[in-house]
């Protein structure tokens, strides 16, 4: 009897299960009306159609890492047969090259440049701009994950380090004008005849702030720090070139507005980004250093011995602080010397037992000593060197081989002296001597 009941219940339970099991209600699964495979396939198709859709292809200014490197402009024209034409402003070769691409499924749908072309120049372990990027090239990627579209742009994220990269529709001019980016690069670096100092000036509509500005061409990266005490804002930015100016990342944020596009003015060599309501940012030249130091006082009369040296065959010759005009003047000395002779060192001895003098030494030629007096320009925070004698002879004229070089150190406007905050390999502090009225700057070690 008992077992009979058990069967009854069992039967009833099975009946209930069966009747409810094939309920057609799949509310919980209605999020998408397509299967994952269908959706991925649709996305693949969407991306491929999109890449093929733009008449003149796509343009991307690729900032691989905007904390150390600038932007590299690439142009892409995709074709149905799986090939892509590509050009880049990575170096002076802005010609167009052909290679292959694929739409691949990675962590999501992505475009991959599967055989070598210009974009791979950013991902060459053996070609890196600074020692700290050894084996990492320019930190570039060439597999881009598809994250949809925004205002006609294609939004990607790089596969390796997840940085956003936008493909913008290119124009015919983008292709023809790409080489002009490299002309602009020279303007960003700055010509020999431009002043040595640069600043970034921001205007938020009411207040103006000034920042020093230094650009490193090898990395296309600029550092810009406030020079005002109690105002510690920095704008470090990667720089990309355009035919008309530069584009920076991260944006320079002024008064809540993000400024990224700067326009070049050939008249004064400045780059200006303009926002709304009087907001602007300008990168411009200035004749004197933004932050003047008292370092010149080390050489004033009454101070202990100072010994500063520039050496042609040592790291001082590679210092980024030497100006092009300085190098050009060194070359002038060598050109004026007979075959087999060349300039070797330029040293400044201040307050030595025999006085203050500039010591020029040569390869296979006797050295020359230019004795000077040092005067202070307290208001201008600089020193002025005045001629006394050559090797103790007060009547002899400046030797012809040094005439051009020496006059920069004798600048009547004076010399700025600055203790730099970097080292040139060795532990000796680095001092620069800059002519106040011309873009002449020499880098030395302080050797005592």
């Amino acid at each position, binding site marked *: 009897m008992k077992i*009979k009941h058990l069967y009854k219940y069992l*039967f009833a339970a099975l009946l209930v299960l069966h009747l409810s099991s094939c309920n057609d209600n799949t509310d919980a699964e209605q999020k998408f009306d397509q299967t994952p495979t269908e959706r991925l396939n649709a996305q693949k198709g969407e991306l491929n159609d999109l890449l093929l859709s733009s008449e003149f292809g796509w343009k991307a200014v690729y900032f691989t890492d905007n904390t150390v490197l600038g932007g590299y402009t690439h142009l892409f024209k995709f074709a149905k047969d799986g090939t892509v034409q590509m050009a880049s402003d990575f170096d002076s070769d802005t010609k167009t090259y052909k290679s292959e691409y694929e739409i691949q499924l*990675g962590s999501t749908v992505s475009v991959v440049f*599967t055989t*070598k072309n210009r974009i791979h120049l950013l*991902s060459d372990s053996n070609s890196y701009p600074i020692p700290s990027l050894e084996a*990492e090239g320019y930190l570039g990627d060439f*597999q881009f994950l598809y994250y949809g579209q925004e205002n006609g742009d294609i939004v990607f994220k790089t596969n390796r380090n997840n940085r956003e990269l936008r493909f913008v529709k290119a124009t015919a001019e983008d292709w023809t004008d790409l080489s002009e980016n490299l002309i602009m690069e020279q303007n960003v670096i700055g010509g020999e005849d431009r002043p040595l100092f640069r600043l970034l000036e921001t205007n938020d509509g009411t207040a103006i702030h000034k920042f020093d500005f230094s650009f490193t061409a090898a990395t296309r990266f600029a550092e810009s720090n406030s020079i005002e005490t109690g105002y510690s804002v920095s704008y470090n930015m990667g720089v990309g070139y355009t035919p008309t100016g530069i584009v920076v990342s991260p944006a320079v944020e002024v008064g809540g507005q993000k400024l990224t596009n700067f326009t070049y003015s050939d008249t004064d060599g400045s780059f200006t980004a303009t926002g709304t309501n009087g907001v602007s940012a300008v990168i411009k030249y200035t004749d004197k250093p933004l932050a003047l130091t008292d370092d010149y006082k080390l050489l004033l009369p009454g101070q202990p011995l100072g010994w500063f040296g520039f050496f042609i065959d040592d790291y001082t010759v590679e210092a980024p602080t030497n100006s092009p005009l300085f190098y050009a003047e060194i070359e002038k000395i060598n050109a004026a010397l007979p075959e087999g002779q060349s300039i070797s060192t330029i040293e400044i001895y201040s307050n030595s037992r025999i006085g203050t003098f500039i010591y020029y030494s040569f390869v296979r030629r006797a050295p020359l000593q230019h004795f000077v007096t040092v005067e202070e320009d307290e208001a201008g925070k600089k020193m002025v060197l005045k001629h006394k004698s050559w090797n103790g002879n007060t009547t002899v004229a400046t030797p012809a081989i040094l005439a051009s070089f020496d006059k920069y150190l004798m600048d009547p406007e004076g010399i700025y002296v600055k203790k730099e905050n970097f080292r040139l390999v060795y532990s000796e502090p680095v001092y620069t001597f800059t002519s106040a009225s011309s873009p002449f700057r020499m880098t030395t070690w302080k050797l005592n």
Partner: protein
Amino acid sequence: MKLLKYNKIAVLAIVSMALISCAGDDQLKESQLNYTQPVKTSLDNWITTNYLNPYNINVQYKWNQNTVDNSRYLFPPTINKVKPALEIVQTIWLKSYATIGGPDFVKKIAPREIVLVGGVNLNSVGTRTLGLAEGGQRVTLFETDYIDQSNRANVSEFIHTIQHEYIHILNQNKPFDEKAWKLLTPGGYTADWYNYAIPESNELGFITSYARSNINEDFAETASMILIYSKAEYAAFLAGIQSPTALAALKAKEAIVVKYFKEAFNMDFYALRDEAEKNTTAVINN
């Protein structure tokens, strides 16, 4: 009796319900997956004819993040550099082994896939990784963009890589006499081998500095270096060794290599070396 009847009805009901309950399902449609073969270029067809069909070796030259180390800054080969690189591999490596080891030798023991990478694989200590052999299945060759077919040193370095990696694959199939090898230059192995100049390592009984990383690399370096030297070059190399103990160690290592090829694969190692030399000259003069 009554119980049994009841059961019969119940079973019948359940069976019929089971049979009809889930009817009306959608019919299977065509697959969502894309089965169409990618369009083959003339290069792809050349690879099929020269690698896939005769040796069952797949060559991958297009970038695939799954077969490379994503933490390294590498790039795929330039398309017109692929075939010259593969021709060198085919002539100097595949053909030499086929001639001496028999036509089926490489077919039986070979990597199933060769991955080509165009760029240099630079390590943070300044050394370059030229090749990788993984699990006896896949060989990755780097720097294919820099091959210069007219330059013997350049071709030798590239071929050195594949010879070296192939020795690893042979070892992964049949081990060499590790016990005997271990006794020869036990004190010379070091993890920072790259800090030593090659002549310095030669004088310790190692054919290269890299050979000092461990005995497996030592064996692969010894065998592959002898293979890329010509007979005369190798004799000159030995003649230049000053230290008698180093010379003895190098010769003992050579003997183990020769014995290994004979015993494991019934192959005359010197004949293989001569064949490789002949084919190398053929590549460079082409």
